[in-house]
């Protein structure tokens, strides 16, 4: 369970959040 | 009509629009029953005057050459039928009624003209009395005011607190108005206290509004400073081409 959570946090940190940051930055830029 | 007949027979005050009636015709109008409506009577009068003129004409024509009595009578009766139809049409489309209505309108308009002339005359008399009264009042004021206070060259007098006893303006039609009005001068004097308090309140209000304004300006400047900081901070992290980065992200 802990590993699963750890994987989720990793994915958030490496993909989901950067993607959301880039989307927000793209909107900001537009 | 009675009034026309009288006027035309006496040849006085003749109606320019109508030739005077031939004395023989008055019998004709008498022969038409008074029970009929005016417009019907006028139509019948037109018809009977046509027949009357035919009867008057026949004996003159009898002695002329190639005169045929039958043909004359035939023509006369067809014309009188045509005239009958014509007067009926005039009656039905209201033309005959108009003669009377106009007259009555003219009558009333003449009558109303006279009444309004009389009214105007009455008003003129009233206003000249009024003017005299106001002139007296004005002279009264001018007498009361000491000469040095009298403004040079202007006929208006400065309104100052002069007691004018009612007798001087009793004659004017404004007396009811002037008597019913309260003494504004007195009212204003009584309100002085209130005005003084109002002035204090307004000063207080003005002061607090000024403070509010200053506070508003200060907070606006602060907000602007904060928003500049926020913008700087958010722009720092902004990537040069986020779309490309986003596309590269798997």
């Amino acid at each position, binding site marked *: 369970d*802990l590993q699963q*959570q*750890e994987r*989720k*946090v990793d994915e*958030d*940190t490496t993909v*989901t*959040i950067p*993607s*959301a*940051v880039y*989307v*927000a930055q*793209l*909107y*900001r*830029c*537009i | 009509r009675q009034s026309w007949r009288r006027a035309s027979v006496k040849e006085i005050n003749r109606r320019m629009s109508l030739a005077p009636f031939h004395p023989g015709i008055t019998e004709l109008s008498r022969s038409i029953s008074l029970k009929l409506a005016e417009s019907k009577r006028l139509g019948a009068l037109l018809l009977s005057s046509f027949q009357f003129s035919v009867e008057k004409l026949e004996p003159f024509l009898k002695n002329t050459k190639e005169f045929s009595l039958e043909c004359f009578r035939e023509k006369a009766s067809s014309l009188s039928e045509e005239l009958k139809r014509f007067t009926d049409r005039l009656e039905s489309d209201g033309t005959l009624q108009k003669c009377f209505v106009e007259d009555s309108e003219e009558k009333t308009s003449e009558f109303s003209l006279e009444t309004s002339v009389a009214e105007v005359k009455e008003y003129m008399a009233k206003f000249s009395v009024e003017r005299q009264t106001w002139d007296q009042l004005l002279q009264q004021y001018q007498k009361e005011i000491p000469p040095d206070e009298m403004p040079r060259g202007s006929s208006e007098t400065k309104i100052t607190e002069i007691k004018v006893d009612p007798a001087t303006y009793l004659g004017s039609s404004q007396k009811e108005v002037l008597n019913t009005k309260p003494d504004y001068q007195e009212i204003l004097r009584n309100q002085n206290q209130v005005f003084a308090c109002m002035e204090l309140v307004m000063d207080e209000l003005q002061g607090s509004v000024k403070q509010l304004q200053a506070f508003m300006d200060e907070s606006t400047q602060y907000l602007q400073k904060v928003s500049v900081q926020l913008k700087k901070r958010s722009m720092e992290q902004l990537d*040069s*081409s986020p*779309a*490309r980065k*986003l*596309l*590269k*992200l*798997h």
Partner: protein
Amino acid sequence: DNLLKMLDEVKNKKQELEGLIANIQDLKEEYCRKKETISTANKANGERLKRLQTSADTYRDHLELEIRKIHGDKLQFIFTGIDPKKPERPYMFSLRLNEARDYEVSDCSPPLECLAEFQEKVRKTNNFSAFLANVRKAFIATVHN
């Protein structure tokens, strides 16, 4: 001798047991620490994502433009508020990076002739906001035509 041997064994086992217990204890502590760290990170990520989502939603509503990451490493841009009669009607196109790492547009609906020209321009200028503004104007022009 057996007895002595067995006593030794028992003593070793006990030591081993103590070792294991200590180990388990360490592991447990490490587990709790990790759990703590992960849940804190999770929470922080959740809040950050929520804030980012809120700002993206605000931009999306005001710009009437939705940006989606779709399969095949594409970005899909969905415009609304184009047709005054049907403001919710979507006008869209997709964007990807081709082998040469250049922007490439595709799946435009309704199709726009001038999209290729806009694509060239954004490759040169990298001015993304101008690119999207032109695309929106072109979609609006299709409605009026």
